[in-house]
């Protein structure tokens, strides 16, 4: 029960990687604040988990694209030990078709929200010697076609992680877990909108050395490892949970 007595806020945790991480924190004793964009989604996620973990599941809704919402979310959080910035969006489009709206929304949700929440929650995290775990992507290290805004946003998250780690040491540890392709709604949406669905599915898997996409829980485990009190000498770390995607590739 390594997270007993710890409170963890996980953005984007009504589904996907965030939801998997939330379940793992609960299994290991933590109290979790779930977050999603819609109140209905948050309520459903809280209801689903609180039956099994009464008193340890809370929920807050906020639109991460709006920094006023991020600030109000932070204000509603009291004591906090671990912030997991997991909420993110992926809008694939070639450079020519990446509208200003796609660009601005991607940066707002994937970078600025993580920055604003980190800044707002730093006082409590400092006081409690807490940790921030940002969720990056293998796309922070590897360029992919038709997702220039997403790649830029995930690169920025790596920079944010390092800058926060340097400036908040030794009080707060700041780390970044970079998942490879993971079986979530986000990825499935990209697959189902592709011209050839089966081929798109194979292509995602082909980016990895393990030749498969990750289960959300596998990424959740990496997030828990980063947040764990066993990781006390790890800060500023960029942890690749990418099935070997950044290790190299076959000819």
């Amino acid at each position, binding site marked *: 029960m390594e997270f007993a007595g710890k409170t963890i806020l996980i953005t984007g945790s009504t589904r996907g990687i965030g939801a998997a991480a939330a379940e793992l924190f609960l299994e290991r004793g933590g109290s979790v604040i779930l977050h999603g964009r819609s109140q209905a989604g948050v309520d459903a996620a809280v209801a689903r988990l609180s039956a099994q973990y009464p008193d340890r599941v809370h929920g807050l809704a906020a639109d991460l694209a709006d*920094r006023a919402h991020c600030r109000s979310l932070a204000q509603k959080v009291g004591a906090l030990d671990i912030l997991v910035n997991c909420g993110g969006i992926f809008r694939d489009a*070639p*450079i*020519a078709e*990446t509208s*200003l709206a796609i*660009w*601005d929304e991607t*940066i707002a949700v994937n*970078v*600025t929200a993580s*920055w604003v929440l980190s*800044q707002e929650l*730093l006082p409590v995290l400092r006081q409690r010697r807490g940790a921030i775990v940002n969720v990056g992507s293998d*796309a*922070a*290290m*590897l*360029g*992919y*076609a*038709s*997702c*220039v*805004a*997403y*790649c*830029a*946003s*995930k*690169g*920025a*998250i*790596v*920079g*944010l992680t*390092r*800058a*926060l*780690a*340097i*400036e*908040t040491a030794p009080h707060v540890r700041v780390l970044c877990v970079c998942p490879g392709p993971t079986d979530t709604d986000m990825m499935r949406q990209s697959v189902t909108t592709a011209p050839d669905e089966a081929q798109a599915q194979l292509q995602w898997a082909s980016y990895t050395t393990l030749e498969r996409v990750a289960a959300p829980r596998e990424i959740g485990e990496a997030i828990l490892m980063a947040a764990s009190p066993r990781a006390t000498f790890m800060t*500023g770390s960029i942890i690749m949970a990418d099935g070997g995607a950044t290790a190299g590739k076959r000819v």
Partner: protein
Amino acid sequence: MAKLTFDYEGYVALVTGAGRGLGFAIAKALRDAGATVAINDRTSDACDAAIARLGGGDRLIAAPADLSTADGPRHAVAQATSGGRLDFLINNAAVNVERSIEATDDVHWDTHLNVILRASFLTVQAALPLLKAGRGCIVNVASELGLHAIANNVAYVSAKHGLVAMTKAMAIELARDGVRANALCPGTMDTELMRDCATDSGDPEAYYTAFNRYHPVGRLASPDEIAAFVLCLLSPAAGFMTGSAVAIDGGSTAGRL
């Protein structure tokens, strides 16, 4: 010293943030190598002053635009490409104001993210048809702070890391079009911006001493030596280079002295 020479006669380049500092040095090097160079800076006055310092002539084009705005980047590209050609796009414009986490407000954050990251995306987007037509070359001037971090610079570090990642995405997407995109990651240069930062620090001498020591080679870079490398990157000598993040940082990211 051995002298590298390049012949860019007939080529057209846009250098953003070319009013001073590294941008000016790159513009000068390209002009000296025969290229037609569009000089972007925030104001017409700044562009005109840079062009005057370079001695004027019909191979220098003023392309003033505020790159922090949504339409500024497109405007800069439009002015640079009135001749219907663009071979080299050098995204150099930046802001760099050191602030603690606590003192970083929304305007500060947005200005850094927009000028460094969004503007570099938007100029590429606007220039893409011409870059593809001429199998051109993009150089995004990032920073060693696109590869690692220092304290009191969170917005800049985030934006520069984003720029490195974005450059790779562009390189992959444009690889089959013959358009190369590379990120340059210079260490600290002795530019006007550096002098501003030193003045802002309250103790310029200590500031310079700290940054000299910070680089294993024990000195700052001169803008001219970085500009010379940009000319290499643009040349056929670097024809197989794309998607690279090139540290040119006096050993700063290599290790600890």
